């Protein structure tokens, strides 16, 4: 039986993610864990997170997880979700500038203020709700229709230095990177655990992923 570790470092609703993973693949052993050994013992790792990036980075450091996450990012399938995606980049604009894990070179930036849609209507921040995801070729999109809608809630987004790391984009109103992929690391800005059928399919694909693109 394969296993997946959901990293518990005090940031985010881990139960939702654990339940969704279990629902997506009932045969997988899903564990919500916080210690290094348990994380490294799992076949796959999910790095979730909601809230503010500085709190997130502090929590990662306080739990002494920086090295573990770095090790996982080099050795086994890793899925970053929301803030767990942003934390993988080099730096974030949030909280006056915050250093992140630098596992994917790039930065995290705020949506422009005073954005408008094509009809001139003000666009709200946070970007909240179901938006279309334009996929680039990757095995984690298997059996998910192009332009499917996933659930987002965020005010900052990742901008990787290398365009080859962009696994999907979403428009708000300009296209931004909503998924990144680099070797055995995949990360999404949206919440697959809250994106109904398509979200569960993505989780299922991750739970069967060998870490190759």
């Amino acid at each position, binding site marked *: 039986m394969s296993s997946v570790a959901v990293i518990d470092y005090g940031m985010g609703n881990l139960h939702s993610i654990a339940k969704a993973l279990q629902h997506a693949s009932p045969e997988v052993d899903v564990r919500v864990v916080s210690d290094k050994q348990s994380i490294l013992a799992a076949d796959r790792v999910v790095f979730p997170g909601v*809230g503010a990036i500085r709190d997130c980075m502090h929590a990662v450091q306080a739990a002494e997880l920086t090295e573990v996450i770095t090790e996982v990012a080099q050795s086994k399938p890793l899925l970053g979700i929301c803030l767990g995606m942003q934390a993988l980049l080099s730096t974030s604009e949030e909280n006056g500038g915050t250093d992140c894990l630098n596992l994917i070179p790039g930065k995290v930036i705020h949506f422009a203020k005073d954005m408008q849609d094509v009809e001139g209507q003000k666009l*709200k*921040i*946070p970007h909240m709700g*179901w938006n*279309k995801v334009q996929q680039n070729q990757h095995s984690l999109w298997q059996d998910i229709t192009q332009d499917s*809608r996933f659930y987002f809630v965020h005010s900052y987004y990742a901008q990787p230095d290398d365009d080859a790391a962009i696994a999907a984009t979403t428009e708000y109103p300009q296209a931004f990177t909503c998924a990144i992929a680099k070797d055995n690391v995949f990360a999404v800005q949206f919440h697959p655990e*809250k994106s109904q059928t398509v979200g569960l399919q993505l989780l299922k694909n991750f739970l069967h992923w060998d870490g190759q693109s």
Partner: protein
Amino acid sequence: MSLAKRIIPCLDVDNGRVVKGVKFVDIRDAGDPVEVARRYDREGADEITFLDITATHDNRDTIVHVVEQVASEVFIPLTVGGGIRKLEDIRCMLNAGADKVGINSAAVFNPEFVKQAAEKFGSQCIVVAIDAKKVSATGESDRWEIFTHGGRKGTGIDAIEWAIKMVDYGAGEILLTSMDRDGTKIGFDLELTRTVSEAVSVPVIASGGVGKLAHLVDGVKEGKADAVLAASIFHFAEYSVQEAKEYMQAEGIEVRLT
């Protein structure tokens, strides 16, 4: 634009049971919030909101169990409102599987609570629910005031200023209910909705007064709402969520069809 306007069915829950009689033919127990939530999820609801109207504190735990059960099989965002007064209440709901909490009267009595809640849990899970009533006389320029106790008690607080303040304090979303329209089925207070939506930077959910599908369209087009919430039209199976979305799409509104 590709972000969909959201449709959010709302369930009033008292002691763990859906309050208003539901007449769905395809579910066994129409009073079971888990079954009703499951149905709304199947129909394509974008989120589900539970309003806990349980009067006694002792029975509060029942809503937690409801959320736990729903969250273990319905994978869309869940919001719980009603009786959220302490940080501990929020922690409890989030742990049960809620994604957001609605704070209403506790915000009016202690605005700092919203600030603390947003700092602790993040703005993304803090919805400030505003119950507003028009207080301007005919001929005067429109003015709405915040009411508490189900619309019975005025507070003297201007609704628009209040919405701006709550966003400033960290609200990630505003759930705006017109107490004049609630239960009337004559449509949203569009002036109120538009005024609030244009005044704040965060998404606004329009609520109160939906009686037919055209009202949902008006809420988005004229009210500039980012999401629309309704209870009875879905509850009594007058329309399904799916029908509502198809109607909105035919009217040129971007929705998520599953």
